[in-house]
């Protein structure tokens, strides 16, 4: 046997591993930094008390609350709309029709629009035009607009990845479109939906630019959805950029944000997996 292919093989393996390590190393470093600096000094007190001295001391209770409310509104608006649009695009409009092409193209463009543009739009439309003012509601709605394109497209992909045979055999058995959709297509499309959800939540939780103009940065407890409220990522931004001596709490908040993201992702996949198990038996 000749030796050359083996050497090439080794080299390629090294290259592949090398690139994986160099990428994950950065991620690991960031997480490590946040966990050690932020997680090390975290206590429950921090989660359940109000910020004092502009956030340098005290906790993040009201901020967590605002964040969760904003997220809740975002999801309540975007999940049903996203699912509905994805079903319309994948099941009721053909690949070539102008309508579908137009909608898909616009969504792809929207998905790439910088968040600051969504912020300005939200400010002009929700805050001013609809008179919602700087409020958690405006923020949530703006984020919903931002999250929708990704959510719709990945859910649509989920529906499209369901084999055509299921649709044909269901139709050949005289099953209605609705029950085919509900009992066969939807469970099979859930993974795509989940990807969209996770990406969407990630984007929403990480957002600062779109929220500064819409939900504002008041760090008191919100009394209603019409109140302004500060999101966690804005809090971190404010502490680390504008407030001297805020670094320690910025780190702690960042740690909370990361944990929050992980908890949401894991519980989403847990719920959907259980649901999937009940609805469908794969392989």
């Amino acid at each position, binding site marked *: 046997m000749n030796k050359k292919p083996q050497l090439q093989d080794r080299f390629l393996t090294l290259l592949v591993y090398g690139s994986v390590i160099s990428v994950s190393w950065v991620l690991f470093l960031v997480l490590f930094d946040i966990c050690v600096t932020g997680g090390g000094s975290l206590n429950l007190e921090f989660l359940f008390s109000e910020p004092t001295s502009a956030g340098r001391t005290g906790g993040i209770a009201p901020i967590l609350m605002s964040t969760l409310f904003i997220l809740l509104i975002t999801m309540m608006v975007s999940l049903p709309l996203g699912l509905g649009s994805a079903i319309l695009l994948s099941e009721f409009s*053909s690949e070539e029709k102008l309508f579908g092409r137009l909608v898909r193209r616009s969504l792809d463009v929207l998905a790439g629009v910088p968040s600051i543009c969504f912020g300005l739009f939200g400010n002009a439309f929700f805050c001013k035009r609809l008179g919602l003012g700087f409020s958690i509601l405006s923020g949530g709605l703006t984020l919903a607009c931002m999250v929708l394109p990704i959510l719709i497209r990945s859910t649509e992909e989920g529906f499209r990845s369901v084999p055509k*045979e*299921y*649709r*044909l*055999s*269901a*139709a*050949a*058995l*005289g*099953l*209605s479109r609705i*029950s085919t959709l509900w*009992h*066969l297509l939807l469970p*099979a499309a859930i993974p795509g939906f989940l990807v969209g959800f996770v990406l969407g939540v990630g984007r929403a939780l990480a957002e600062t630019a779109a929220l500064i103009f819409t939900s504002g940065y008041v760090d008191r407890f919100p009394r209603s959805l019409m109140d302004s409220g500060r999101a966690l990522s804005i809090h971190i931004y404010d502490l680390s950029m504008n407030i001297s001596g805020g670094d320690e709490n910025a780190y702690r908040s960042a740690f909370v944000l990361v944990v929050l993201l992980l908890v949401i992702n894991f519980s989403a996949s847990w719920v959907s997996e259980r649901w999937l198990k009940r609805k*469908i*038996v*794969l*392989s």
Partner: protein
Amino acid sequence: MIEKDFNTQAFESRSQCCDPQTQIETRDLTLSYKGKPAFKNINLTINRGCITAVVGPSGCGKTSFLNCLNRLSDLMPHCEVSGEVLFDSKNIHEKKYDVGLLRRRVGMIFQKPNPFPLSIKKNLLFPLKEHGVRDPKEAEAIMEQVLMHVGLWNEVKDRLDAAALSLSGGQQQRLCIARALALKPEVLLMDEPCSALDPISGSKVEGLITQLQGAYTIVIVTHNLAQAKRIANFAALFWFQEEAGVLVEQGTALQIFDSSKNEITRAYIQGVRG
């Protein structure tokens, strides 16, 4: 709605098709994809309780033809059908014809076994429920009967909750046949039902099809002429003419396979044989 008492007697009585009665008749049936005809002017008669084999070279529109008989052609993009398909003397391609009911009366078996990604049990119960069998006891009784009838009961009775996709290909195909039978159809359309199976599973399915003869009107597309000759009462040969499928000859299996006067038919049958 499905009749309450699931009639097993029908399975046992097997007429020999000595007194053929027309059940389905196509009149000048033409189908085109994007304006290009896949087959043209097909006038075919299908008799009640008999097995009609449709044979012909690849791409001459046999699958497309079957799709017209249960209006699955409605689902194909850019597909246009003209002409008539008379099912018990009513044109099923009329707009107001009840497609859901049609597809319950005309079952279909595909070339590739395609059970739903559900449990074995749900594969049978789900369509039954959708067709109005609400009583679980009744549905399970039907399930047991059809599974027995396709010879699958003993193989799966202990694992009805297992995934249907965990069955072997042959078992999956028989499950699909059971799923179609559960709805009590009158007609079964089979598109090369054995060609994706190994010879042993294939012959099991073939045996099953012969058992169904008499109780059901069966239209079977197959490339296996020996099989067609073994099981069919009637046969039809599709062929190309100007890049579109046409019906060259139809008649009893004996006429087509053994004593055809038609040049093309004889050439095709000998060609495949020799």
